[in-house]
């Protein structure tokens, strides 16, 4: 065990000093750290993303997903309310829901046919009152004190905002708007402003890296203009674009807000060519950008909500990106692309074309997964190492530019506070 400078938890890696700009590799590989992260970030005191209301439009519609490493089901009940229940039968603990989505009137665990309402209330227990034999003797059955009310599915606390569904295993979690904070709520509401969302589909990838690396990737405005040649070449994300970084008071959530240069105004594709430096697209429809009224000024807003989700607006492409950890060394990254009910056919096509930029094959996303994998390889092989997030200094705070790693430092300052707290 390494000597720890943290007071509360001996499993925690040793941080050099009190700041958060030197990050021990161990935070990405240590299984004890990972278990504690699941408890403290995914299962307690935080809201986690489970999906969009548009995924369960009708009563009985359900979708299976995960919070952290626990399986949950989002379902619309008969009254139209969205419930989230844990996918564990109260009897023998079976993960009973195997379909990814569908429509049902109730949930039944196939093992012993325990039956639950859509809200998770136990309704049916076969042979509960025993079985009467041929000579009239009642055999077996549950004890008389058995009460179905005590054996429902674990029901989570749910919050819906703008068509996005969050849930928490922690019934004492603070209200969602407080969790997001007044700094982040306006950026969330800008994208999810009450319009009905229109589901376009999913992309799923498994990235062999620690889940936090994806939060860091979208809290890192340093790399997009460097790693993602496509962004630079076509002016979508440049260090000299008008930008600002905002975070909640804890430093856990953040928004990277950027406005494309002249090329973005009026969807003027012709002007984009000036950024290509000799590189020409054969088909410019993929960057046929048309500003939408709800954008206001920014053309890009990437919002990280810790720990489980990223909300993407990259010009006309909008999506949620869910982070589902899978041990300390892997996570599943689930992209849900959507549009809005009032989109024209042309706008839907535009969103779908621009989706080529994102996802596991995307021009500006495929390489994010690659760099995360290669970072994790180093963390695995050299646990005593540290990584550096020093761009812009060592402090944590909002900026009016992108030339800083302050959001990563903010996240780890928060991480240290939560992880270091006494159990």
């Amino acid at each position: 065990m390494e000597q720890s400078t943290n007071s509360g938890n001996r499993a925690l890696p040793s941080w050099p000093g009190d700041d958060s700009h030197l990050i021990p590799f161990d935070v990405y590989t240590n299984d004890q750290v990972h278990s504690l992260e699941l408890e403290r970030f995914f299962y307690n005191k935080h809201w986690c993303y489970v999906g969009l209301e548009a995924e369960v439009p009708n009563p009985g519609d359900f979708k299976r997903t995960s919070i952290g490493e626990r399986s949950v089901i989002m379902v619309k009940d008969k009254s139209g309310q969205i419930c989230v229940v844990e996918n564990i039968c109260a009897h023998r603990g079976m993960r009973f829901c195997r379909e990814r989505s569908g429509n049902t009137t109730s949930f039944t665990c196939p093992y012993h046919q325990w039956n639950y309402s859509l809200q998770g209330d136990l309704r049916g227990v076969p042979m509960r009152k025993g079985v009467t034999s041929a000579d009239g003797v009642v055999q077996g059955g549950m004890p008389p004190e058995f009460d179905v009310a005590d054996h429902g599915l674990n029901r989570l606390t749910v919050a819906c905002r703008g068509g996005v569904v969050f849930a928490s295993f922690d019934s004492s979690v603070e209200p969602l708007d407080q969790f997001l904070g007044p700094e982040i709520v306006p950026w969330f509401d800008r994208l999810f402003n009450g319009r009905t969302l229109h589901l376009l589909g999913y992309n799923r990838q498994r990235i062999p890296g620690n889940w936090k690396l994806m939060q860091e990737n979208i809290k890192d405005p340093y790399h997009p203009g460097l790693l993602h040649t496509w962004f630079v070449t076509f002016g979508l994300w440049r260090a000299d674009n008008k930008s600002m970084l905002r975070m909640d008071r804890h430093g856990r959530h953040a928004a990277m807000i950027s406005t494309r240069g002249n090329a973005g105004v009026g969807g003027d594709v012709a002007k984009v060519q000036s950024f290509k430096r000799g590189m020409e697209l054969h088909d410019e429809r993929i960057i046929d950008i048309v500003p939408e009224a709800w954008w206001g000024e920014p053309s890009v807003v990437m919002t990280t909500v810790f720990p489980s989700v990223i909300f993407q607006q990259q010009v006309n492409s909008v999506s949620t990106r869910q982070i589902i950890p899978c041990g300390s060394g892997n996570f599943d990254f689930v992209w849900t692309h959507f549009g809005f009910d009032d989109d024209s056919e042309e706008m839907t096509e535009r969103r779908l074309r621009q989706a080529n930029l994102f996802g596991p094959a995307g021009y500006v996303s495929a390489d994010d997964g690659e760099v995360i994998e290669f970072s994790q390889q180093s963390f695995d092989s050299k646990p005593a190492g540290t990584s550096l997030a020093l761009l812009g200094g060592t402090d944590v705070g909002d900026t009016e530019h992108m030339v800083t790693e302050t959001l990563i430092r903010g996240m780890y300052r928060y991480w240290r506070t939560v992880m270091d707290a006494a159990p």
Partner: protein
Amino acid sequence: MVSHMTALSPTEWFAMMQLYAEYDAVVDAAHWERWVQLFTDDCIYRVQPRENFDRGLPLATLSLEGKGMLLDRVFGIRETLFHDPYYQRHVTGPPLVTKVTAEAIELSVNYSVFRTKLSQPTTVFNVGRTIDVVVNTANGLRFSRREFIYDSELIPNSMIYPI
């Protein structure tokens, strides 16, 4: 099925099998210029999760319309996308011909793609079936549509090269 089969002459069948064999050979050899040439100018090339296809959701992992977008993908993987080097190897089953008209052959194949990264064991990268339309052109048979509908639930990190 038999009536469809009889609609193709042995010469046509041979040409079609050659097209499929060449397709696999050029993507496995990363001959991307030739890959583009195997399509018509107004082609559709898509790689889509089966989940989306089955539910009628339009999103694809890759969705390219026309040769221009294919050429841009070639440019993208060569000049703009940083990625781990890897080989891919296609194994494609026999075509199931579903429709033959004077203009086009509609057919489908099962496929698997293996990925080999340097210094690592070979793994199954992507499996599924295709929905293809092959047309006769002045240059021979070409794909006017290739849709790879993949069963694979998770892309193992990233998909760089066209499959």
